Every structure is written in structure tokens, then in C-alpha cells.
């Protein structure tokens, strides 16, 4: 129960940050990338503020032996710069450039009751499911060939 309440609080702070920063507004996000046109540099301030606070906070928090309500810190251990990382990031960027929505911006935008946010999120979830299916088929396909 306490875990859910703290997660709800973190979600509320996150959603407020996204809304105040302008990240729930696809037009503002696209204008950040339109240096040759209607450039709006605001997104650099969003990322700067977020990274600085997180970097300082993580250094204080990760000094502790474990988180408050869990037994261990769940930190990514993969260090390899592999093809799925780069290709995936490249494809994500194309989708972000078409729509102006990233996952972190689109979920709070659902709270604004906008049809475009709903269409984006449903499509994004479909894309996640398709990619997981493809990864599963690739993995098991390889296994059955060797069996």
C-alpha cells in the first residue's frame, strides 16, 4: 500500500513536471527540433533541469544500501553498445519527429483528454507489443533451429 502511494506521488510530480515544462505539448516539442524554422529552445531547459536534479539526487540516494521500500536498487546492468540499442533509438526518433510525442510526454497528455494523445498511446502500446513478439519469435526461432 505504501509502495503504491509513493509511486502515485512520484507519478503526480512527474506529470506536473511534464505539464509545466511543456513536454505534453507536441507542437512545442517539434519546434525544439525545428532549428531551421519556428525554433523553441525550451526543451533543452527541461532536459537540463531534469538531468541536474536527477544526477545530484541519485548520488545521494545510491549511497544508501537499499531503497526505502524494496530490497535492492534495480539498475540496468547491460553495458554493451549493440545494434538493437542504436537501431531502436533511431526508429524511436523517427516516430518522435513525426508525432511530437515521446512516451513520457504522451501518458500525461492523456490527462488533457486529447484524441491525438489517445491515438498515439494506443499505437505506441501496439508497437511495444509487436516488438516484444518479434524479439520473442527471433529468440525461440533460433532455439528451435538448434534443437
Amino acid at each position, binding site marked *: 500500500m505504501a509502495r*503504491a502511494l509513493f509511486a502515485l506521488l512520484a507519478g503526480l510530480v512527474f506529470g506536473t513536471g511534464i505539464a509545466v515544462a511543456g513536454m505534453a505539448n507536441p507542437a512545442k516539442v517539434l519546434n525544439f527540433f525545428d532549428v531551421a524554422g519556428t525554433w523553441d529552445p525550451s526543451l533543452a531547459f527541461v532536459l537540463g533541469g531534469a538531468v541536474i536534479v536527477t544526477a545530484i*539526487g541519485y548520488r545521494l540516494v545510491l549511497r544508501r544500501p537499499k531503497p526505502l521500500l524494496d530490497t535492492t536498487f534495480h539498475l*540496468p546492468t547491460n553495458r554493451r553498445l549493440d545494434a538493437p540499442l542504436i537501431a531502436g533509438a533511431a526508429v524511436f526518433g523517427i516516430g518522435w519527429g513525426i508525432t511530437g510525442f515521446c512516451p513520457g510526454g504522451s501518458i500525461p497528455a492523456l490527462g488533457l483528454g486529447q484524441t491525438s494523445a489517445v491515438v498515439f498511446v494506443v499505437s505506441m502500446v501496439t508497437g511495444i507489443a509487436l516488438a516484444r513478439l518479434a524479439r520473442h519469435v527471433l529468440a525461440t526461432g533460433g532455439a528451435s533451429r538448434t534443437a
Partner: protein
Amino acid sequence: MTEFTPLASLFGGALIGLAAVLLMAVHGRIAGMTGIVSGLMTPQGTDWGWRAAFLAGAIAAPAAIVAVLGPAAVPFESVVPLPWLAVGGILVGIGVTFASGCTSGHGVCGLARLSPRSIAAVLTFMATTGITVFIIRHVFGGF
């Protein structure tokens, strides 16, 4: 045209960082929207509670701001046609799954940890997003 909002964006960004620190301090989790949403799509997962609660908070906050201060408090503008939103949404979903993260997971949490994978991912998606926007707006003259 959108208004340049350095102070609001810096403050909003700091709040996003605060949420990331809170989720790490209490749950020991990276505040990456890709991982949080994706984890909810795994039926055998046992930790759906905090994920669902985080998403509920993230959706409720802008709704509450608009309810109290009016729609002008959270500007929203999207001129992208719905079929393109669907195509772009599927590409985002596929991309972030293979990249294991997006703007929040790699961009905020990963850069804060100076993760080489996240630095590579952010440089890559920033480049392809910029190229895509340039092509759509200045080559095809579209949205």
C-alpha cells in the same frame, strides 16, 4: 509557433528529476516511461501495483491542473493527422522496446548516471528526430 519558456521548462524539468529521485529512493526503480508501461504488459509480473499507481499519478496531474486553473494552464497543440500519429506511435513503441528506453529512461535517468548506452541512445534519437522534423517541414512542407 510556441512561446520560449526557459523558466517554466527548467522548473518542470526539475520536477521530472525530483520524481525520478523519489522513485529511486523509495522503489529503487528507474523512472523510464518505456519500462514502466512495458512492465504492465507482462501478465506474470508481480510488481504491477507501483507501475499502475505511477501512471495514474502522471495522467491525473495535468488533468488536475486543467481542472483548477483552466485549459490555458497546460497548452496543447497537435496538427499531425491521426493516421500519421498512428504510424509514428507504432514506430515509437517498436523503437523504445529495442532501445530499452526513451526520453525519460535514457534521456533523464541514463544521462544522470552517465551511462554510455544512454548517451549513445540520446545522441542517436536526437539526431533522427531532428532529421525527421527537417524532412517533414522543410522538404515536404508538411506538419
